[in-house]
């Protein structure tokens, strides 16, 4: 026996949990808006019962819905509230049985075959603050699912014959094949009973295999296995020092103990750690947290200890260490043979350790693969730990620039030509001298829509009498900087 728990109008119900006063009013949530979609033509993603009573249906365009119901309130979707509500629904299901499937965002299916106690009263007693729960039971999970979604069949045990009066559109909740549904509608089928009377073989020959599966489902001939919901296992561990420690050795000793436990748990589950989350809690109350990505999933203590030890050597906590926390993100251990004729790093574990040592030497965010940003803002880029798919950017100058970071402020002799300054000579800085030739000005600006972040500048490429090639920048009102040199 299977039971399905369904939350009707799930997005609206979740959003209204934080606005209980609005529940009595007709409310709706709009579908996601594309860049060119006018808001008034967006379809309604979900509506509440008050809106349904006013004669509105989901999928109506907003302008039509407002004509029918001028008091309709459009509320924003609250994804965090939906996640919380879904988790509460799963928790309720797990209170009845351990075998729970998250069938859809608004529905869970329970396998009651192992339950011995009566379930009818328990199902009727289920409740969630701010949301209604509808339930139904059947011999197959899909029948229970269908029944829970319709008023005529919810709250009881249903058989295939009980589903006959339901509209044909109910199949949309278990299948995405809208083309087959549209064809059946063209044929004049209106209810599930009409569909169930059709011969299965002829249906498959004319429409395809999918309606054949629906046919078996409605007749209760197919009973699939549930995809059981299992919460992700946490590998988090903590170690509290009796007395706060100031040296490294006790921390490394405690870390080894935690890693031995972690390695055992990983081995028993045939998993490996792909990244480690490491946190030091100091006596002052502060915390030092780092995440270490391992080049290859590791299950051995030595492979996990080396990068952690390198990290510890680089840390300079300003207070004694009171506690230590370790968590791991897991994946399957890789067991692939390396390619002989493809290029790869010879020793990825050693490479990861070298990168960790470089980070310890230079600081975070100083080592990585540069990716030019898709922006006109000068010197915009990101550093990535590994190669990522880079956007198709093309340098606008054949000569690469050697940047000065930060740009060097200098004094420039210039004359005004029109509304723009015309540089004549650099008066100070690393390369003073007369400008013998120049290209520009090249105006550039960006982020004009952000009052605080808007920028505007004039750039020149200049050649000095000493033959040095430099990039000079002017920013209003009177700021000259050297951006870099073309070596």
């Amino acid at each position, binding site marked *: 026996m299977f039971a399905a728990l369904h939350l009707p109008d799930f997005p609206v119900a979740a959003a209204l949990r934080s606005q209980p006063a609005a529940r009595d009013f007709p409310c709706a949530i709009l579908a996601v808006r594309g860049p060119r979609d006018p808001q008034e033509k967006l379809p309604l993603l979900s509506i509440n019962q008050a809106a349904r009573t006013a004669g509105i249906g989901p999928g109506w365009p907003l302008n039509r819905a407002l004509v029918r119901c001028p008091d309709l309130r459009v509320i924003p979707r609250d994804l965090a509230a939906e996640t919380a509500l879904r988790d509460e629904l799963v928790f309720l299901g797990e209170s009845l049985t351990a075998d729970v499937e998250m069938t859809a965002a608004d529905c869970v299916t329970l396998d009651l075959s192992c339950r011995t106690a009566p379930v009818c009263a328990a199902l009727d007693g289920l409740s969630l603050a701010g949301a209604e729960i509808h339930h139904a039971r059947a011999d197959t999970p899909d029948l229970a699912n269908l029944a829970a979604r319709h008023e005529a069949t919810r709250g009881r045990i249903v058989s295939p014959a009980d589903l006959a009066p339901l509209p044909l559109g109910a199949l949309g909740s278990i299948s995405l094949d809208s083309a087959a549904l549209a064809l059946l509608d063209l044929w004049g089928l209106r209810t599930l009973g009409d569909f169930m009377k059709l011969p299965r073989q002829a249906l498959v020959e004319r429409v395809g295999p999918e309606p054949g599966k629906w046919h078996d489902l409605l007749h209760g001939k197919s009973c699939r296995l549930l995809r059981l919901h299992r919460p992700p296992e946490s590998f988090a561990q903590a170690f509290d020092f009796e007395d706060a420690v100031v040296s490294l050795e006790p921390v490394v000793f405690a870390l080894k103990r935690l890693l031995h436990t972690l390695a055992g748990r990983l081995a028993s589950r045939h998993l490996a750690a792909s990244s480690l989350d490491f946190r030091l809690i100091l006596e002052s109350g502060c915390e030092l947290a780092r995440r270490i990505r391992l080049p290859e999933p590791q299950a051995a203590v030595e492979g996990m200890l080396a990068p952690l030890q390198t990290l510890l050597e680089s840390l300079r906590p300003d207070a004694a260490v009171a506690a230590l926390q370790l968590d791991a993100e897991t994946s399957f251990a890789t067991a692939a043979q390396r390619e002989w004729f493809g290029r790869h790093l*010879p020793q990825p574990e050693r490479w990861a350790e070298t990168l960790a040592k*470089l980070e310890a030497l230079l600081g975070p965010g100083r080592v990585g693969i540069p990716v030019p940003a898709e922006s006109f803002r000068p010197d915009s880029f990101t550093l990535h730990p590994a190669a990522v798919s880079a956007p198709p950017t093309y340098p606008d100058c054949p000569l690469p620039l050697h940047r000065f970071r930060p740009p060097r402020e200098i004094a420039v002799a210039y004359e005004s030509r029109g509304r723009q300054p015309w540089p004549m000579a650099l008066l100070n800085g690393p390369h003073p001298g007369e400008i013998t030739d120049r290209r520009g000005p090249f105006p550039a600006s960006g982020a004009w829509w952000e009052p605080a972040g808007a920028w505007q500048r004039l750039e020149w490429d200049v050649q000095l009498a000493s033959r040095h090639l430099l990039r000079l920048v002017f920013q209003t009102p009177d700021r000259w900087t050297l951006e870099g040199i073309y*070596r």
Partner: protein
Amino acid sequence: MASPAVEILRQQLRDKFPQAHGLRPEPVSPAPQGKPFRAEAFPLGAISEVVPAGPGAGVALLVAGLLGEPAETSPHPELVLVDGADAFDPGSFTGAACSKLLWVRCDSALDMLKAADLLVHDGNVPFVLLDATGVARRDLNSLPAAAWWRLKQTVERTGGRLVVLAAFPLVPCASLRLSLSAGLSLEDFDRPRGELLERLQAVPEKIRRAT
């Protein structure tokens, strides 16, 4: 008779680890003229140095030549740039070219040397480019000469390539020193990069050693 693939593999191993095969490393010969932006222009297991012949010598073009203009993103870095003055500009290169590069941003000459030492010891990426052109001369002169000799021994052991870009001759134990010139001017901003790369000239300089 071994198959051709095995013979090729044996030759590659012999070239990379001559000491293991009882071979003496070949004396460094002057780099072929005109192609200083190919990795093969620099000897394996040695420190090479590139100094500009004057302003606009095209030192940054050499980096562009080493990275090339690949069509696809590289899964692993093929070249490490230890940037002594944090002067590298990713905007001057395509995203695919930047994917071939691991950029190590240093703030001081000492950090630059320590980072180079870590990377040469590691050996996973056999081409390390150390850019000291933006570092102040005073800071570079304060580096102990013994550090360069230790680096040379490490490079010889790992068999990689370490190329130092400097504004003046800096490395006392360099096996090869190239003087780079391209005679760049403002007119060259309108020329394609490939044409400018062809103009790069590298002339080997005589290295005087203490006797």
